[in-house]
């Protein structure tokens, strides 16, 4: 700890860059609609992501109803079911998780946490949101297009994605690909801003190794996204050409209804490589911000410095780098050379090392801490348990011999929902409960929050734990109904009804959360500027909620790292980052 805490005699370097001049909004429209303030853009991103997330939630209800009571609902045809699966997956991974973590949390927290007035290029940042909104609208449009949205599965594997048997073949797939391309363009505009802000616009005294881990997580995830999304961009462009122009990038010769289609000579495996070169880093694009945020939540609410800060930073960077060389573990059943399987299994298992370092450090941070079981802390603890659970099944699936029989079963569904569905969502909830007081000036209702946590946390286990068992029985994923299969006992159907009951309950509990968000905005307890007694800069702003420009006249100066909690001899159990060492050690 001594190497990151600065002594009083350490001089803070002079400012290297002139203070920026901000564009101040002149009307209601430029203040709340076409706004260039990162904080407003963050809220716009978050609300849009949550709105489209609600659509995905309803889709999951419909899927669960079908799985529990096959054939009972006339409005769920097999084609509908495939469309629900596809849109649920795509919305949750890209339009909700990625947008909320990077566009929402990233926009709000990066400038505040590094002590900047705003993102470096606010106008480009604003464009980023409006292109994201356009991407969401194009996605929503596919629900109303003739034939409905695409039902190709969220991985959109060719050749089936663009053949006539797949639902949404006429318009759905085109709108899906167009929406993804727009999303990537919009994200790149925002992502460049986040990266440059962290690298070049920190305040005096804020070295990289004094940044809160939240910023490290979002920063590394953004760098990864800027390198991974290009693969998806190229793949989407090529598939769009395959569908619209009749090119054959991904399409081999296909016989359909007894006659050859015009396609021939393309490589369906190429799509899988490009998709997963994006897809695997994508897992960590939503996981790394969660890692960062959860580190800060745990440290703040356990009133203890994060254990092994430097290791935590390097683990984030190592996970980010390694995640680019593991993508083919999603393709063990694609018929690749076993030697490749060996290579990718090895790299996959190596990722467990930095990830385990992080888990140990979280636990050691909690060790003998002054743990306050606040709502954000509950969600943070829930995340650790859930992430470990999901991560362990990841070790199963990373091995070729275990993965091959489990491929395309409910086991895989259970694994990825635990590790990159439930776990990051718990952090998102925790983050919202933690920062809502700063964003609105009011606390979220504690009782509703605890109710929301317990239903969500226990309910998620009720949903996904039994799915592991179903997967081991051999129940396949993505099936509309099971029919009569000799190897699946009738009890699987009972279990499916149980899972559905849990899923509907958890879904309903989210409505309590949304009610809490709206109710507390007007009726919540007034928060004050620093209700959690946190050290990081966003809690030290002159106003709450922070005004445009964040810091009033003078930018803050940072004297210490972000984790001076319970420092022996200090007056309070926390020392803010902008408090000079001399006064901090007094009393």
């Amino acid at each position, binding site marked *: 700890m001594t190497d990151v805490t600065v002594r009083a005699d350490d001089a803070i*370097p*002079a*400012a*290297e860059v002139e203070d920026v001049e901000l*564009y101040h909004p002149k009307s209601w429209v430029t203040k709340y609609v076409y706004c260039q303030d990162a904080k407003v853009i963050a809220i716009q991103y978050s609300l849009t992501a949550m709105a489209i997330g609600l659509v995905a939630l309803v889709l999951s209800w419909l899927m669960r109803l079908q799985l529990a009571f096959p054939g009972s609902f006339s409005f769920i045809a097999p084609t509908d079911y495939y469309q629900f699966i596809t849109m649920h997956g795509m919305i949750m991974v890209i339009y909700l998780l990625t947008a909320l973590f990077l566009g929402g949390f990233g926009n709000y927290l990066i400038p505040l946490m590094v002590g900047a007035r705003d993102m470096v290029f606010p106008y480009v940042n604003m464009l980023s949101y409006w292109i994201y909104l356009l991407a969401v609208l194009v996605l929503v449009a596919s629900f109303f297009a003739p034939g409905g949205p695409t039902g190709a599965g969220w991985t959109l594997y060719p050749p089936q994605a663009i053949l006539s048997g797949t639902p949404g073949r006429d318009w759905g797939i085109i709108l899906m690909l167009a929406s993804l391309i727009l999303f990537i363009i919009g994200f790149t505009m925002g992502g*460049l801003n986040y990266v440059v802000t962290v690298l*070049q616009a920190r305040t005096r005294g804020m070295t990289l190794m004094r940044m809160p881990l939240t910023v490290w997580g979002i920063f590394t995830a953004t760098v990864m996204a800027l390198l991974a999304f290009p693969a998806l961009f190229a793949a989407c462009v090529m598939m769009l050409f395959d569908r619209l122009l009749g*090119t054959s990038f991904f399409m081999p010769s296909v016989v359909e209804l007894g006659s050859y289609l015009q396609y*021939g000579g393309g490589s369906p495996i190429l799509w899988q490589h490009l998709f997963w070169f994006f897809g695997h880093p994508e897992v960590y694009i939503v996981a790394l911000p969660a890692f960062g945020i959860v580190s800060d939540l745990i440290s703040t609410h356990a009133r203890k410095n994060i254990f092994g800060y430097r290791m935590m930073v390097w683990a984030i960077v190592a996970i980010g780098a390694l995640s680019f060389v593991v993508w083919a573990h999603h393709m063990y059943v694609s018929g690749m050379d076993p030697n490749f399987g060996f290579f990718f299994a090895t790299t996959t298992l190596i990722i467990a090392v930095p990830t385990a370092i992080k888990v140990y450090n979280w636990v050691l941070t909690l060790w003998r801490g002054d743990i306050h079981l606040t709502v954000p802390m509950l969600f943070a603890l829930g995340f650790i348990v859930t992430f470990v659970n999901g991560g362990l099944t990841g070790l199963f699936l990373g091995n070729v011999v275990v993965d091959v029989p489990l491929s395309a079963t409910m086991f895989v569904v259970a694994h990825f929902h635990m590790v990159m569905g439930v776990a990051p969502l718990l952090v998102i909830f925790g983050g919202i409960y933690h920062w809502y007081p700063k964003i609105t000036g009011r606390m979220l209702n504690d009782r509703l929050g605890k109710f929301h946590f317990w239903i969500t946390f226990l309910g998620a286990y009720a949903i996904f734990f039994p799915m592991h068992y179903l997967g081991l029985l051999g129940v396949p994923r993505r099936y509309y109904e099971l029919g009569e299969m000799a190897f699946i006992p009738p009890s699987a159907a009972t279990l499916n009804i149980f899972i559905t009951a849990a899923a509907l309950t958890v879904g309903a509990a989210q409505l309590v959360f949304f009610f809490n968000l709206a109710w507390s905005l007007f009726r919540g307890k007034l928060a004050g500027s620093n209700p959690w007694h946190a050290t990081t800069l966003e809690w030290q702003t002159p106003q709450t909620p922070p005004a445009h420009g964040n810091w009033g006249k003078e930018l803050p100066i940072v004297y210490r790292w972000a984790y001076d909690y319970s420092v022996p001899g200090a007056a309070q159990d926390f020392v803010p980052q902008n408090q000079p060492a001399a006064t901090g050690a007094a009393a």
Partner: protein
Amino acid sequence: MAEPALTNTGEALTRPAGWQQIAADWSSDQRAFKNVSWGKVMMWIFLLSDTFIFSCFLLSYMTVRMSTTVPWPNPSEVFALTIGGKSIPLILIAIMTFILISSSGTMAMAVNFGYRRDRARTAALMLATAAFGATFVGMQAFEWTKLITEGVRPWGNPWGAVQFGSSFFMITGFHGTHVTIGVIFLIIMARKVWRGDFDQERRGFFTSRKGNYEVVEIMGLYWHFVDLVWVFIFALFYLW
């Protein structure tokens, strides 16, 4: 909205050399790249991201070229022009490449004159660069027209693998789009330089922010990148 590139504190940064300097810069506060403006860092990172897009397109082209069972058309014959009764392979591409490389030269000179605040020469050289770029795109349009009249389509061609046309139109089209965007921005920036916007600190129409002469250099980064990518396309598509 670009930042002043200088360290305006009066006190010079004392920095070690070599690797130690990199370590010192990255462990310092405020900026990881000392004396590099926000705009320039942003362009570099964007170009890194764009490199990945072009790499994906080129790797995909190589993959389908290997996956198809139909022979690949011979680029030397396909891209030959008959001039004065003689068929000269790759002559058009050679001229196009020469023009694009030349435009990098004028761009570099424009950056130089930009930092000398020589408005007239900077604007003139930027316009010359734009003219070279427009010529390149024009010749590309000619090349496309010629191939289309010979029967090349994204979904087929008279000589062999259908992926030939798909890859050709996609890759050269994506690169041509980059050149076209570059030409448009070169003309906009040349107008700003010519009018003296950066001397008068005139505010941008959309962003309401002041620019400075550094945008010429940032524009140059983009332009040189587009040239460099062309070299790879030339080598991997036309010469292979």
